[in-house]
């Protein structure tokens, strides 16, 4: 350590601000190397292989009825699932932050279960629950409602895995809401209902949108928890990620790559949307 950090820092100053702390070159270099090796290079390969398909090859894959159906199933159900998560996630976050009731802490911890529970486990247990002989499936079947092995089953699984995204994004914002704002609103003559809609909800909007986008993005890519309950009937309850797997098993690499490229583009779009929401939120509300 007797070498000269002063001089080293001066040499590196074109890129990094001078600092007396050592190790920037090593850690930064390793970060880029590892990121490139594990994430960027493989993803670039996917984009490269997808570009090999050419516009016509790409269009051929995309207009395949089975592909169109799978993408449509994935997007539609992901959207509905995210909407359901948005509504119930807000209620859960509000209840957990604002009210006190028995087992609140335990229930709060439980919200993270879909993050922690492996998707395959979630998949088989949801399938078992909603199967015609399952805890929920049997009474529903008596009413003539079928969930497992239909599109409803996919929706149930996607709601399950998306819920914590909304709750955990909205919760900290609710707890930061200043009670004075509500009191001010009340002193100005607003009813509780008016206060909620005019004072409380607007600052929550960015967090709600972010949570919605996160849940939606996660649902689009979800595989493990869906395939067990979906029934996986082509054109009906077959999701896009599953179709990638099927194409791979048939050694249709071009087809798999094409669908994967579309999904990757959606991921990037979702990421961009989330960043834009957060940038807007920072400007508008000073928080994310």
């Amino acid at each position, binding site marked *: 350590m007797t070498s000269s950090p002063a001089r080293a820092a001066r040499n590196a100053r074109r890129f990094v601000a001078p600092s007396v702390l050592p190790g920037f070159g090593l850690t930064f270099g390793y970060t880029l190397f590892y990121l490139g090796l594990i994430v960027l290079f493989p993803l670039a390969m996917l984009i490269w292989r997808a570009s090999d398909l050419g516009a016509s090859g790409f269009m051929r894959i995309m207009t395949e009825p089975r592909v169109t159906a799978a993408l449509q199933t994935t997007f539609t159900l992901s959207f509905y699932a995210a909407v359901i998560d948005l509504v119930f996630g807000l209620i859960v976050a509000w209840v957990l932050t604002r009210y006190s009731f028995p087992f609140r*802490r335990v229930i709060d911890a439980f919200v993270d279960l879909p993050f922690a*529970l492996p998707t395959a486990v979630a998949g*088989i247990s949801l399938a078992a*629950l909603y199967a015609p002989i399952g805890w929920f499936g049997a009474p529903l079947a008596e009413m003539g409602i079928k969930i497992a092995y239909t599109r409803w089953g996919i929706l149930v699984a996607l709601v399950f895995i998306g819920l914590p995204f909304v709750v955990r994004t909205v919760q900290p914002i609710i707890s930061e809401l200043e009670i004075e704002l509500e009191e001010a609103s009340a002193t100005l003559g607003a009813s509780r209902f008016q206060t909620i809609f005019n004072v409380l909800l607007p600052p929550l909007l960015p967090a709600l949108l972010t949570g919605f986008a996160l849940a939606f993005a996660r649902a689009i890519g979800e595989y493990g928890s869906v395939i067990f309950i979906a029934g996986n009937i082509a054109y009906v309850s077959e999701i896009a990620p599953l179709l990638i797997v099927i194409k791979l098993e048939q050694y249709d690499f071009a087809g798999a790559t094409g669908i994967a490229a579309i999904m990757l583009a959606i991921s990037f779009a979702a990421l961009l949307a989330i960043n834009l929401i957060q940038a807007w939120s920072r400007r508008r509300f000073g928080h994310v």
Partner: protein
Amino acid sequence: MSDAVFTSPPAARSRRRPRAVTEDAPSARYALIAIAVIFLLLFLFAPLAIVFSEAFAKGVATFAEVFHEPDAIAAIKLTLAVAAISVPANLLFGLAAAWAIAKFSFPGKSLLITLIDLPFSVSPVVAGLVFVLVFGAQGVFGSWIKAHHLQVIFAIPGIVLATIFVTFPFVARELIPLMQEQGTVEEEAALTLGASGLQTFWTVTLPNIKWGLLYGVLLCNARAMGEFGAVSVVSGHIRGLTNTIPLQVEILYNEYNSVAAFALAVVLAGLALVTLGIKTFLEWRHADQLAARGGRRH
């Protein structure tokens, strides 16, 4: 309140102690709590409960038998081995990335953070596929790998790579905000007192981030052991060889061996519960030593 009825003028009698303006009406409160709790019971608690219920449906003995199956034992061993490689790999990366990003200032930092987060936004199936495209028989390095008699896809290296990919951001994204919050002043103090760079890291930086580090490693490990989609694509599902616990669960379930499938699932659910327990404990006990909560995604 009873004597108030007699002493208060009639107008005041009708109003009881007014509710705080920031409180919702009790009816609304109870209704919302009921909606939330019932929703969570149906959608979160029931799936967890049924794992245990199904696993023990035919008694403890049948449950225990599953763990004598060679395939199950192999799956457990493989899962542990994969986690034992991928978690330390991402831990090392997380530390390096957090040191470079949090302790120094350079242009393009937020882009770098976005790129580090990227694997969270990629579908697990796509994550598996990219490694097939790189290392598979038809892949970029396919012929080279074949010529050297190596195997990545449908073998353990592929499983490890896919697992590292999907768990890539966990440690880094926990440490970066935490270390940014802590700044560099304690490290500077250590340096003025004569500590070397490594000494500073071990004696000052690491103790300050240990709970956050544990938190990140915990989540990374839970995901590494439970990953299904990405691993499923690269594994080849060779029994006793390339099946991790989640893949073994799938096979058993598809064979209608429900008890065995759920018995193995109990292992993973138990891991999830332990993870949640420690996570909750850390958030409760060491909240000040974790990165500020909010907007996290896993």
